[in-house]
């Protein structure tokens, strides 16, 4: 799932909500994303933290399926920061 913006652009984003799903196994991060996206307004960004390396592809596929925009991923220390913009 290709990111839609560059890493430097991602770094500049202030997410409307951050969900910490570190330590959660599949499908935990996806379910946290599902819950979290409903709590941000349309056009705003949700950031999901996950220590599961498959989360970025999972969230990317999910975003396409349900109509949100997968923005990309930034690396953290032992986890990844996944960014999704709510589109509906």
């Amino acid at each position, binding site marked *: 799932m290709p990111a839609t913006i560059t890493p430097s652009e991602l770094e500049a984003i202030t997410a409307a909500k951050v969900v910490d799903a570190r330590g*959660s*196994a*599949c*499908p*935990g991060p*996806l*379910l946290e*994303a*599902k819950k979290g996206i409903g709590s941000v307004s349309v056009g705003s960004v949700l950031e999901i933290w996950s220590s599961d390396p498959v989360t970025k592809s*999972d969230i990317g596929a*999910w975003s396409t*399926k*349900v109509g949100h925009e997968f923005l990309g991923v930034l690396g953290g220390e032992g986890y990844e920061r996944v960014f999704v913009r709510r589109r509906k």
Partner: protein
Amino acid sequence: MSDTEKLVFMVLHGPDHPEHATIPFVMGCAALASDVQVVLGFQADGVELVRAGVVDSVHAAGFPPLAKLMGDFRELGGTMLVCGPCINSRGITAADLVDGAEVVAAGRFVAEITSATNSLVY
């Protein structure tokens, strides 16, 4: 024909096979989170999973505990259908089942599967 997508997962393994018991719930939760309707159909040893309290001791390596997944599945609006003859032969009654589990027979399973976008057997 409805525009709504629906998946049916047939669950045939019980607590003695934690991974086979867990994966349909993982898939079901992911599908529900993706706005897809989901029916879990429990047959054969799979019916043991919906006997109240059984999932509390099922935890496949690499996955969340099955009790957590079952809770998520119900919270997301998934449907759980249980084979009547399968529980009868095991001495299980409807009163023994977890909340939300519905006892059905073959005709209901056929109706769910033939109206689904796709069906998988675990």
